[in-house]
């Protein structure tokens, strides 16, 4: 009986030995299937996408919500002559007509799986009309009427600084100024 068991065990091992190529083939197909599933899941997870965040610039005003897709900035109480402006904000007097507050803000757009998109277009638009003042982001003068092009070839994954500026005519009455800039990014 013991011998029989040993022979059986030997037989079993022998069977394994003889069919090792089959086992390897089986392993091969199992791994091929796993591999296929892995590739499919990776491709599925890498659906082409675009992400946008705002960041405080090293030399600019400190943004509320920096590092997210919704940020705020507060210039506080400022006046054309005298007073102080927040750190990172520059005040300039434009002759006898107006004065300007400006600060750089960083925008970072990242892409994933968009191999054929070399860069991005960024436009900006005010959510509410602000015709009394002149609003600019980078080279674009902003209105609430239509999106103005800030850049037509933005660089992915780079924190790019754009100067936001608000020009206030001396003729404007003192008061609170607030608005929301809608930054629109599209892959090129």
């Amino acid at each position, binding site marked *: 009986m013991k*011998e029989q068991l040993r022979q059986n065990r030997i037989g079993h091992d022998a069977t394994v030995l003889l069919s090792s190529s089959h086992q390897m083939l089986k392993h*091969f197909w199992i791994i091929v299937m796993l591999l296929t599933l892995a590739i499919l899941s990776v491709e599925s997870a890498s659906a*082409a996408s675009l992400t946008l965040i705002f960041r405080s610039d090293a030399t600019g005003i400190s943004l509320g919500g920096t590092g997210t897709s*919704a940020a705020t*900035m507060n210039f506080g109480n400022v006046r054309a002559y005298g007073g102080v402006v927040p750190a990172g904000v520059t005040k300039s007097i434009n002759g006898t007509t107006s004065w300007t507050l400006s600060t750089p803000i960083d925008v970072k757009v990242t892409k*994933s*799986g968009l191999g054929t998109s070399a860069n991005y277009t960024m436009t900006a638009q005010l959510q509410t009309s602000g015709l009394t003042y002149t609003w600019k982001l980078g080279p674009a003068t902003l209105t609430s009427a239509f999106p103005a092009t800030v850049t*037509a070839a933005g660089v992915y994954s780079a924190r*790019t600084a754009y100067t936001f500026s608000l020009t206030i005519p001396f003729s404007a009455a003192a008061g609170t100024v607030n608005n*929301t800039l809608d930054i629109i990014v599209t892959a090129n």
Partner: protein
Amino acid sequence: MKTNNINFTTSHLRAAVGSIRQTWLGVLLAVAALAVTMAAPPALFAAGQTGTGQQLDAPPAEPAPSLTISPGVIMVQAQPGQGTTQDVSISNLTPVEFKFDLEAMDVAVRDGKRVFVPAGEMPGSIARTAVFSPASVVVPPGSSATVHVTVTIPENPAMRAIVAVFRSNTKVQSPNGFAMTASLGALMTFTLSKTLQIEGSPLHFDGVSQGSNLVVSESVTNTGNEPVIPNGVVAILNSTGKLVGKVPVEAMRLLPGERLEFKAEYPSALQSGKYRALMTLEHDGTVLTTSSAFEIP
């Protein structure tokens, strides 16, 4: 004794087979890992330009609290009169709720540059036909929303692209200040015919002084009727015609009428001498080659 011999032989064979199996499995797993690595998405942090006002961040350990649109680009092949429905999703990984209104704009090309035109402003507007379902979405933190956009191609469309924009209608809390909110758009391009053509211009060289990296560029215009995405290579030949080196030219999408600079930077300084550069751009089986001589003093 015979049995013992067999056992002895078998145990050695078993060990050998085990070793082979382990090696075999190891090789397969290595191949699997390599394949998965190759199938992984392209590097999130593509080679970006560094210069004034730009800096590259280190890859984040976890996703930034941001908005993401997917897909960012949709390329559609269709016929005039046909309709197409596409799904576009937006994910909100920020801690605040976002409200978006869906809007389509035509992407026109004026003086070689893209401009976004409100739907219906131009004759043959494609954006005017866009129907979003739903037309607005509220996306709580950590959630995503998918919108179906159906577009019908007019008989004579004036452009070949639109953007489907998730326009943020979010009121960011900002007493006594300014707020910025992000909107993201998906570019949809339409190929309606086989009229594909690009035209180049003489090559332009920057950094030809000795010791500088050479930048070869070519202004390329899409003179056909459909979007194209040329990519290619720049080959540098010396005065004897021997290949000195070649560098790839990044692919860029060109809408009809659009003009872009295709560039390649030679990664090392060339020695003084006379050279010839050939920029070869390929798209849809068509090749455009432009050649110019230059000299490094």
